[in-house]
């Protein structure tokens, strides 16, 4: 019980820190913040239920006014801004990512990568595009045009989520709770 609680709290903090540390620069010079990678990892490492709760806790802290989103944004304004859908979708992205890792018998790396793609990109973009379409009063297609530029970065993050999850399992068997 205590362990479950502390894992949820610590991963919420981890997602926050990943949005604040200087952006990770990839080999070919695309700067990305690792926040959505943190959301993917919450799902693939902690599993569906705990990943969902950790991410929900992070979103709640943002709502309460801590400037924890990438770029130092936070507060209730986030939830009426054009990017509100992405923030609301974070917990569900982690939920689905974790669910995929828990319910498939694929090798861990593949399962984590697939979970990150389905949850961290598929589910997250459904929420994000809906939010954009509502606030900007556009169609979903027009909204999709706006976020297309972020897709390559997110695809890279999904691959990294797979690699990192496997590395964790190798370095410390038992640390990947979604497969225990």
């Amino acid at each position: 019980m205590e362990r479950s609680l502390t894992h949820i709290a610590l991963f919420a903090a981890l997602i926050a820190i990943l949005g604040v540390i200087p952006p990770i620069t990839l080999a070919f010079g695309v700067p990305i913040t690792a926040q959505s990678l943190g959301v993917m990892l919450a799902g693939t490492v902690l599993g569906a239920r705990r990943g969902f709760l950790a991410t929900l806790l992070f979103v709640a802290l943002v709502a309460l006014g801590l400037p924890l989103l990438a770029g130092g944004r936070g507060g209730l304004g986030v939830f009426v801004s054009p990017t509100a859908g992405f923030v609301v979708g974070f917990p569900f992205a982690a939920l689905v990512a974790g669910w995929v890792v828990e319910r498939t018998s694929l090798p861990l790396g593949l399962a984590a990568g697939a979970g990150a793609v389905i949850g961290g990109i598929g589910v997250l973009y459904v929420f994000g595009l809906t939010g954009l379409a509502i606030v900007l009063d556009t169609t979903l297609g027009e909204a999709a045009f706006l976020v297309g530029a972020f897709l390559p970065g997110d695809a890279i993050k999904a691959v990294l989520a797979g690699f990192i999850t496997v590395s964790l399992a190798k370095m410390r068997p038992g640390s990947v709770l979604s497969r225990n």
Partner: protein
Amino acid sequence: MLTLTSPVETRYHRWPAGTKLAALAGFTLVLFSLDAAIVPPLALIAVAIAYLAQGKDFALAGLRLLRPLWPFVALILIWHLWQGDPGRGAAIVLRMLAALAAANLVTLTTRLTDLLAVVERLCRPLSPILPPRRLALAFALTIRFLPAMALHLSHLREAWAARSPRRPGWRVLVPGVLAAIDDADHAAEALRARGGTD
């Protein structure tokens, strides 16, 4: 831990947090459900007056919080100009600015402790599945571990920089996540040693 609450003490700071949140919810709902062209500009003027009533510095702080929105403002205006309907674009921009400024006003004038109290009160009906003490502990743990984890990651990046001329890439994230898991295990042991979470 730094929050977005304004250090400039305003009259709104003394209003109850629950009332402010309910008013904000009502305001946003009305703003997004009424389609009349007059609504967004009126709403924005009302919010601007609420800011300006508390002085120039406070209003400027509010304006700074709207900064991440400018790319979207430009995008919407250009898009609707191109579509030949600038009036619609202006209405969307004004509505977005009014909604965001109002929400920021509540964030700027409500302390974290007051907001946490509201969350705990709202979650009370859930207490059989989510004990209030455990919820409060989760919030406290996360807030406490934010600086600790930031320090951890910066140490890892320094250790990387001491050994490699290249900039630290995603590889420092593996020990970073591992450290988070270790911290969680230690914190769990410490909690259990002190009588657990209930």
